[in-house]
């Protein structure tokens, strides 16, 4: 048995390492101060896909990411770790998309590039938006089952010609094991296995991979350094899809397809309102212990 797997990945600003200049005075993200990284939970998702590829030879792992030219870095990064290839979904018409428009674009792209997909795996959520909506919405748009908050894929098997996945998912106070026929969408938790490192031979092989969007305006592959390599090795040209390529309905894309409107953004500064100052005296410490016991914060 081999599988066709699509991994959904996003390039995000590294909000985990926020410096003092991370926000503009207007309260929006200062993207230039935050390095762009592979969304952490999408790496957990990629690892689940790669484990299945290890287990079932012939399995293909294709990454789809939506974003500007530089987002192709996510595809390269995934290929360094073991993915077979990927597509950059890029078009001005996709810009300004909320989760609904994003999932529409992704679902449309999946139907186009991998109509017979077995598994679609993505991270639970991206660290820039924290919505956890895109994965489930992609499943809905494609009419597929979904398993969210996945901790790990336990098994994929074929029973009487039907492929099935068994996965564990994180729930409050425990772990649930669920089963679904394929195709199916999985969204993976950050507590799942970490992604394997970049493999050095793959890095050497794929380091020159580029999506057309990454080229400077009016430049072709033939004008790049090592141009002959792009001729000889087609895998160096990454897949790129526009709105038209995937026959997407413009009304459902980008800003036009996004019912979410940001009304305003407030900069919140935490202030201590009900603070108390305690001395180190036995009396004060005993008082604090009693108070915490009464509030059932300790006990």
């Amino acid at each position, binding site marked *: 048995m081999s599988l066709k797997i699509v991994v959904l990945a996003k390039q995000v600003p590294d909000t985990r*390492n926020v410096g003092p200049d991370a926000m503009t005075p207007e309260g929006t993200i200062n993207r230039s101060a935050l390095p762009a990284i592979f969304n952490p939970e999408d790496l957990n998702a990629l690892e689940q896909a790669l484990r299945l590829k290890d287990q079932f030879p012939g399995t293909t792992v294709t990454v789809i990411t939506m974003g500007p030219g530089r987002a192709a870095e996510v595809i390269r990064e995934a290929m360094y770790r073991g993915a077979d290839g990927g597509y950059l979904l890029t078009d001005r018409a996709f810009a300004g998309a909320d989760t609904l428009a994003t999932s529409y674009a992704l679902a449309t792209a999946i139907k186009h590039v991998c109509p017979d997909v077995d598994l679609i795996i993505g991270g639970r959520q991206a660290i820039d938006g924290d919505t956890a909506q895109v994965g489930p919405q992609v499943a809905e748009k494609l009419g597929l089952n979904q398993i969210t908050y996945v901790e790990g894929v336990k098994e994929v098997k074929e029973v009487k010609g039907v492929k099935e996945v068994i996965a564990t998912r994180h729930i409050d106070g425990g772990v649930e094991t669920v089963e679904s026929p394929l195709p199916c969408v999985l969204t993976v938790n950050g507590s799942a296995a970490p992604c*394997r*490192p*970049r*493999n*050095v*031979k*793959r*890095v*050497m*092989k794929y*380091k020159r991979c580029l999506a057309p969007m990454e080229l400077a305006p009016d430049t072709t592959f033939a004008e790049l350094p*090592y141009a002959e*390599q792009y001729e000889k*090795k087609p895998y160096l040209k990454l897949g790129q899809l526009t709105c038209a390529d995937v026959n997407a309905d413009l009304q459902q894309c980008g800003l036009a397809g996004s019912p979410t409107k940001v009304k305003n953004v407030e900069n919140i500064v935490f202030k201590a309102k009900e603070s108390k100052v305690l001395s180190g005296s036995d009396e004060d410490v005993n008082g604090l212990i009693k108070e915490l016991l009464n509030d059932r914060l300790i006990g």
Partner: protein
Amino acid sequence: MANYYNDIKEIKFELENSPLMERIVELKERSFEDKDQYDEAPQDFADAMDSYDKVLDIVGDITANVVAPNAEDVDAEGPHLEKGRVSYASKTYENLNAMRSAGMNGMTMPRRYGGLNLPVTVYTAANEIVSTGDAGFENIWSLQDCIETLYCFGNEEQRQKYIPRVCAGETMSMDLTEPDAGSDLQSVMLKATFDEENNCWRLNGAKRFITNGDSDIHLVLARSEAGTRDGRGLSMFIYDKRDGGVDVRRIENKLGIHGSPTCELVYKNAKCELCGDRKLGLIKYVMSLMNGARLGIAAQSVGLSQAAYNEAIAYARDRKQFGKAIIEFPAVAEMISNIKARLDAGRALLYQTARYVDIYKALEDISRDRKLEPEERAELKQYSRLADAFTPLAKGMNSEYANQNGYDCIQVHGGSGFMLEYACQRIYRDARITSIYEGTTQLQTVAAIRYVTNGFYSQVIADYEQLPYAPEYETVMARIKAMAEKFNACTTAVKEAENQDLHDLCARHLYEMAADVIMCHLLLQNASKAPELFGKSLQVYVNLAEAEVEKHASLLSKMNVEQLENYRQQ
């Protein structure tokens, strides 16, 4: 995200700023003959350098994010022994898996066997980086370079059998030491006998202090010639763990490098293969093995020095006393400056040595396939001599520096440094072995001293004096030249005494003088190109080296034949 390669600009500088690098890549890549055959092979020099940078970026990433965070737990847990088999500390497996899936094994091996065909210089950098994260883990991982000896002296069948396995992540060990054969390997007694019936060799006996002794593939030094007692009766064998016959009797309880299992091995009629020719085990193969291993320990030592520097400076910036960070006190800042100066000087020596090794090894490898041109033969001879002369300097000096730096690192921490909560105590303990194994510093002196007495170091120093340097360092150059004169004068005096005991007594001092002067020159070259990185270290190191040279000169002036008796102990 932290990265132990990108965060340390000096390593990148060492890789990119030597005029030898282009020649190394040209030789190692054989004029890029692999470029159409292997997707990962470089197209040209710039492409190769770019790939090396990417290799080290991955090593730096894994070290910072897997190896270093695991180091404390690995140190506390250590390996276990059960029924004659070793299991590593649990997080050592995480480290090994990360390295294996990144493909960081068999790094210097040719691509046709699954290797990365990296120059020794790049592999050395990887070694240094990993050691900064955890020197004990570096030990296990870097034993992969034993494969170099199998590649050089094994037959094609053995190469094809073993090299791909090492490239896929199987580990190695070199089984040399025995209870009565430590520094004196000529006394090795492990018995190798030929089993006529099964047409193979068999090993019987015991080995001691074997690093990673339960590895997958062992290179074993054993006595194949019954009745002999010296080095000429020893041959090298390959033992494959898959064949069985070697058990681990004990894991040593050590002061440092806890993650690395040091084993006592029992060979019970273990099947093995002869590697290379009989009787050349010690005189040729082990010498080659040891030279590679010594460069590895030099890299491990530099990594430890970097770790000592990182810990010392972080603590000194953070710790406040008398209302300010302790780094602001000159007495503390001096210790950190000294660590940094020894680190930069030692690192410069490490990479210069690695580059010399690279050129000679690559030419030697070419000579296995075709006859070298006369100028290539001359080049091979020159660089093989330089490599041979520099390896004991790099190993001895860097291992001693790692110890001093570990000591100063604890001192910077004050009382906290003596507590087990801080990493500095592990660095201090791990550094201690570096000046002992793969030949003590005293034995490095033995290996190097002929290059003192035959004038080779003096010639190298004289050549270095001719290199262009930045004009602002004119007084520095003058001071280094004065140091070299002292070294030459001391050498002459010792030689003229014509007394072997005196010569042996003075050797260590002459050895250090040569190394001090050479490191001054290498730092001067570095500072001339990148004063922002090396300017301070150059000045501090020349101050230190000058005082050292003075000290040695003073001692040597007193160490005459009449004084010999005072240095004899009953």
